[in-house]
């Protein structure tokens, strides 16, 4: 059974590229365009990994991450944070909130895929 990945980003074109990349690796994908939508998607069904942008409308990525980690159901859910804000403090903050990995935009597609595979602990 293939792994399921929730992509949370408000940039349509980035979503398209991420979706394409994940599908190419054989993952199932689901899309959320803002923080609230992301939490709703998580409530509907649990994915294996969340690719989470930080700058999101309605609720930012840090808050989403904090909420995921505060719920017992999703405490071991893998989170990969993705942001265009590459400052050290942001990275530290994201990891401090419990993100498993942190990738800055623009990213190398190979690196991103490798990171996701590593987090999921297996191939597709």
């Amino acid at each position: 059974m293939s792994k399921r990945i929730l992509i949370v980003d408000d940039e349509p074109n980035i979503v398209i590229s991420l979706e394409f990349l994940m599908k190419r690796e054989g993952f199932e994908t689901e899309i959320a365009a803002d923080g609230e939508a992301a939490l709703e998607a998580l409530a509907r069904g649990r994915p294996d990994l969340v690719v989470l942008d930080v700058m999101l409308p309605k609720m930012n990525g840090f808050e989403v991450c904090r909420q995921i980690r505060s719920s017992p159901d999703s405490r071991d859910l893998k989170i990969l944070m993705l942001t265009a804000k590459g400052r050290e403090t942001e990275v530290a903050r994201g990891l401090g909130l419990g993100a498993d990995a942190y990738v800055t935009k623009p990213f190398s597609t190979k690196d991103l895929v490798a990171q996701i595979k590593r987090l999921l602990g297996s191939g597709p």
Partner: protein
Amino acid sequence: MLQGWMIVLVSFAYLGVLFAIAYYGDKRAEAGRSIIANPFIYALSLAVYCTTWTFYGSVGRAASNGIGFLPIYLGPTLMVALWWYVMRKIIRISKTYRITSIADFIASRYGKSQMLGGLVTVIAVLGVIPYISLQLKAISSSFTILLRYPAIVMPANSVARPFLQDSALYIAMILAAFTLLFGTRHLDATERHEGLVAAIAFESMVKLLAFLAVGAFVTFGVYRGFGHIFTLARATPKLEALLTVPNTGGGYGTWVALTVLSMLSFMSLPRQFQISVVENVDENHLGKAIWLFPLYLLLINVFVLPVALGGLMLFAPGGVDADTFVLTLPMARHAQALALFAFIGGLSAGSGMVIVETIALSTMVCNDLVMPVLLRQKWLRLNERHDVTRLLIAIRRFAICAILMLGYIHFRAAGEAYALVATGLISFAAVAQFAPSILGGMYWKGGSRAGAIAGLSVGFAVWAYTLLLPSFAKSGWLPAAFVTEGPFGVALLKPQELFGLSGADEISHCLFWSLLGNIGTYLAVSLIGRPGVAETSQAALFVDVFHHTQGFERSQIWRGSASVEDLLPLIGRFLGPERARDAFLAYARRRGLAGLEELRADADLVHFAETQLAGAIGSASARVMVASVVQEEPPGLDEVMDILDEASQARAYSRQLEEKSRELEAATAELRAANALLKELDRMKDDFMSTVTHELRTPLTSIRSFSEILLDDPKLNLAERQRFLAIIVKETERLTRLINQMLDLAKIESGNAEWQTAELDVRDVIREAVDATGQLFRDRAVELRLSVPESVPSVLADRDRLMQVLINLLSNAVKFCRPGEGRVEIRLAAAKGFVRVDVQDNGPGISPADHHTIFERFRQVGDTLTGKPEGTGLGLPISRRIVEHFGGRLWVESELGKGATFSFILPLGASSGAGEKLGTRAVQTTS
């Protein structure tokens, strides 16, 4: 029967007691336990004012002039009342600058003038010699009279006696010897004479008690109290006249003159200056002296009239000189012991005056007359002598002997022509000449050296002409016609009726003319001339002594170089090497230095050395000596004035300082606020950079992702390949647009934008903008309505920039409209002074909370239709800045769900000037 030897023995015993007291006083002083450091001793020592003139002369004066003897004591009583203001200042000045005599005081005040010091000394010596001779005469005649006890025989004219049989000569010699012992016992020229002061205070007690004893004896022993004497006197018309003012000599005029004269003399007499200033231990003693001294004067005058009246009633007229009543009354009653006590009282009054006066004069003669001359004699090689303290002492001893001998010569010469009081008044009138220079110098900075010299000279000359020369005439040295008919028969120049001023007694007459000439010349010459540098600075130091004592910055004035190796031996020569070393060491300790080797020869040390030296040889000579070893650059007058101005304006400065510190506090607060603002700006810049980075990275992310996807997978199907490539192109455009707009905004904000300002018809610009966005409207099927009047006034603006604003507003409106249902209306209207453009849409609207936000950079408010709005988030900020540049305003009116209206206004007429100006500036910046 009183034997001669017994009188001599008692006299010597008395002098021996005096010496013992002085010796004990000195010992105590050396041990640091002063016996004179109390106000009672100080007040008693001041009574050195009361000499044989008082002891014998007052009764004599009262016998002829009745209560006319009183002004001599009223003057000092009045003067003492002013002491807290006058004498305290003199004492403070003298202590601060180590002034040791009245000559030194005046010389120092007027620029440390050697000439002035010399002049004052000469006047003082010449003026005081009659006064000394008076003491010799009184002691000598009292001795002679007592020797004949119990017979009462007036001494024959002493001039008739051979030289060596004249008791006055021996008395002068004995007094000289005692003065040498008292005043110059130590090889120490500067110390105060504590023992001497104690002895003088003791003498004051003795003469007071002696006089009171005689007075009580006459009043209560011979008669039955005051009432008895005065009742008897009233019965005799001649005696009754003595008890009212109009019948005593010159009347009220003389009273006023004598009171003023004694006021001035009490301040200017060398011995009074010595006792009240130089020997003063603590200026607070003045407080008690102010009432103690008048009390002493009152006591010593209580019995004057009873004794005088008693003598006049007891002795046959003309038989006994009234000046001797104090001695002869006890003798007439065979009160042997009392007569002896009276003699001792007279001796103490005379010796006290002679000792203190000659010491004071000898200091002046040495410091202000002899030393300046000697120091100028290069052949004496004084500068090379290791220790000249012995020389100083020798000069002083010689001066003491010389002054006493002069006094004796005057005694022999003047003979019996004058009564005691008359002789004393001549001296008073001479020293009173110092008063204008002293008082003027203390309270008036304008008094100059030339003025003081001129005033003193004129005053002294008038004194000599109106008082001294007539006294010579009376003594037979000058023809009597000189006085009675005037020199060469010129009546107008009659010495005692000068310029026709008659009707006054000789003292009042002299006082009037001499002080008039003295003060007038002093003021006139001071006002006309321009004072020198030294005078100006000394004037300020004296007048403002209470301000300068602590705060005066000497180093500001002084420029020069000196060395301790030069200064120490110099001071040592005059003070003795040991004392000089000790003084320097003490000075170094006060400054917190370990020893002499750490001393730096700066302005303060030079001043210290000069002050030390001034105590020994006077300020004028000290100045010359110090200048000989110190290379000094005299400061300019302006410089000195500036500095003194500064010093006296200390209060003004401190006020300014307070003001400055308040300003500083205000500035600190401003700086703190500015710093907070800068921090805030820094944080905002940080946020801005972070935002810009984010905005740039977002399109880059898509471009990179799709490029890599395309690169990795060459077999991607055509449709996807095209779709991805289209995204790449679109994101690239977005990136370009973003960068352009950021640069645009930066240019506008920094004022570097180019503006092509011209007269525009806004209708044309609107039409062009509508054309440019036509495709956009058609794509989205949004309806556009135009509502433009027939004509509007033109505005001054940049056509392209205005287009940019309109296109931005139109494309924003389209972007947020629901495709197919959207409706956008653009309206143009002219109002008073401006045109107004509205762009209204029927989109989702903007919550009032966001009305402000949307004009900030990168702050987009999303709509619910397409998720993230397109655009850079810079359009509105740029548009607002453009409109504001032309003097207009851009704003939004909207509510959620009710569409939005973006409006701007541009000024008409008022803007034309501003617009041109801005245009000109734009050209300049771009050229």
